């Protein structure tokens, strides 16, 4: 069996994967930069924690409600975000993160600086889930998130987001309701962060405002950018690599933010699409390998057809 330490690390990475995938909907698919994703994780975590500790609601309804609350707040906060673009959107979302963190920190209802404790792990049929079972739950949520992500990317909604990311004005002139699509991206992305936040709260059993600070948002964004923004594989691999790094080496833990900063700088200089983005060295090399492999196969037509379908 996996050791307790490994299970803890894997669960943390798993929660980061959900966070990175949900941010990828907003920033990768719809192209709306967000520096405040941790705030929505916090809203989910606090919603879940308060519902659980104050109303006696079980984990499962609290988990679902946490996603709904975070999605709703995301939809409301998307409205001021619609008025700004690019750099100004980045600053607005950063501001949202600071405000929400301050609300958790200064309002006694949210536990203020003391945070909220006594959040038990979820129970199933009367027995509390152990750590390995909780990891299983996180994996299940990841699988569902990936399935939803794939579905959206293939739908008219995903295509509309891509058009907005490429050229907002041209998208509008081609019949795309830009406002509705942007709000939808913020809503779904925030809801995903809320679900991750709920898992986080019930995993740590204790939450504090600092867990959902601007720094945390940067960590999540780094994972998305590192892996390859706008792809499915990128945020997953980014969350795994950057989530595991501080665990593998102590210095990486202490200088975490510095390390992420340097990594991001290097990526922007040498691999602006991230290590697994469509224009990255690894993906180009992989495609070349796949192409040269397919030439020797007799079923060249099949290969062409499948290439065509991924387009």
């Amino acid at each position, binding site marked *: 069996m996996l050791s307790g330490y490994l299970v803890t690390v894997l669960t943390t990475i798993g929660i980061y994967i959900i966070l990175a995938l949900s941010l990828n909907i907003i920033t990768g698919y719809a192209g709306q930069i967000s520096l405040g994703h941790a705030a929505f994780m916090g809203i989910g975590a606090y919603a879940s924690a308060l519902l659980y500790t104050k109303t006696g609601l079980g984990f499962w309804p609290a988990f679902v409600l946490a996603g709904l609350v975070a999605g709703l707040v995301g939809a409301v906060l998307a409205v001021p975000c619609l008025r700004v673009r690019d750099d100004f959107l980045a600053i607005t979302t950063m501001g949202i993160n600071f405000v929400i963190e301050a609300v958790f920190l200064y309002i006694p209802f949210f536990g203020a600086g003391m945070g909220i404790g006594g959040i038990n792990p979820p129970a199933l049929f009367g027995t509390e889930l152990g750590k390995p079972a909780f990891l299983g739950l996180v994996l299940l949520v990841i699988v569902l998130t990936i399935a939803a992500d794939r579905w959206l990317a293939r739908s008219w909604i995903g295509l509309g987001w891509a058009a907005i990311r490429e050229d907002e004005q041209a998208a509008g002139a*081609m019949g*795309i309701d830009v406002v509705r699509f942007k709000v939808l991206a913020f809503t779904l992305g925030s809801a995903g962060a809320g679900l991750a936040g709920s898992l986080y709260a019930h995993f740590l059993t204790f939450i504090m405002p600092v867990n959902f600070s601007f720094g945390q948002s940067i960590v999540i964004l780094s994972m998305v950018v590192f892996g390859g923004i706008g792809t499915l594989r990128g945020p997953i691999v980014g969350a795994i690599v950057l989530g595991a790094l501080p665990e593998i080496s102590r210095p990486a833990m202490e200088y975490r933010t510095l390390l992420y900063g340097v990594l991001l700088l290097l990526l922007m200089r040498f691999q602006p699409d991230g290590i697994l983005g469509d224009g990255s060295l690894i993906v180009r090399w992989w495609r070349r390998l796949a192409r040269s492999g397919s030439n020797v196969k007799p079923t060249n037509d099949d290969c062409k057809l499948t290439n065509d379908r991924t387009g």
Partner: protein
Amino acid sequence: MPLLTIESVTKEFDGVIALQDVSFGVEASEILGVIGPNGAGKTTLFNCITGIIPPTRGTISYRGEAIQGRQPYQIARLGIGRTFQVVRPFPNLSLRDNVLVALGHRHYPGLRRALSACRTDANRRIAAALLTRVGLSSGHDRAAGTLPLGLKKRLEIARALALEPRLLLLDEPSGGLRHEESQQLLDLIRDLNREGISVVLIEHNMPIVMGVCHRLVVLDHGVKIAEGDPYRAR
């Protein structure tokens, strides 16, 4: 009744008057040229019609319905397609996806339809037919940003055609093209017009204007200074 009526449209930007009291109509199935020097307000006029910038005053009606102040997507869905002076295909999307974006306008109402797959075989066939229609018969998986200018302009027209437009607004279709390229593009515009699509054309190149337009509107400093037969407007 004209297909599109522009009545006393004025557009001011912080005190600068880009369009002043401009009125004219676009008849069904005509090709109308809008000409005038740089800064005459031609592109501003297109932006007012398509809802990108609402006019300060005046009314714009399409098939008898006032459309000024509506959102660009609403106007596009009514069947008014446009191209841009500086070409703006979605550069990182494939040619097919560029066309599919505009095809989607029929699918967005209702969440269930918006959630359905967009790259179905049927939709791919429609997109392929539209691309072929404008002369882009192959390479539909290529990213639009990799196309040369002349083909980007054709792609923009294919994208606008996916809206099933009754009215096409073309902003300098021949700009930056070699002579034979622009002649081929004009043939395409004439063909589309013969199929019943009305066209409004912004153009600098006078031989092109004379060759293709049925009627002209001349703008200068935001004011309409002439309107009529191409040979008389000259």
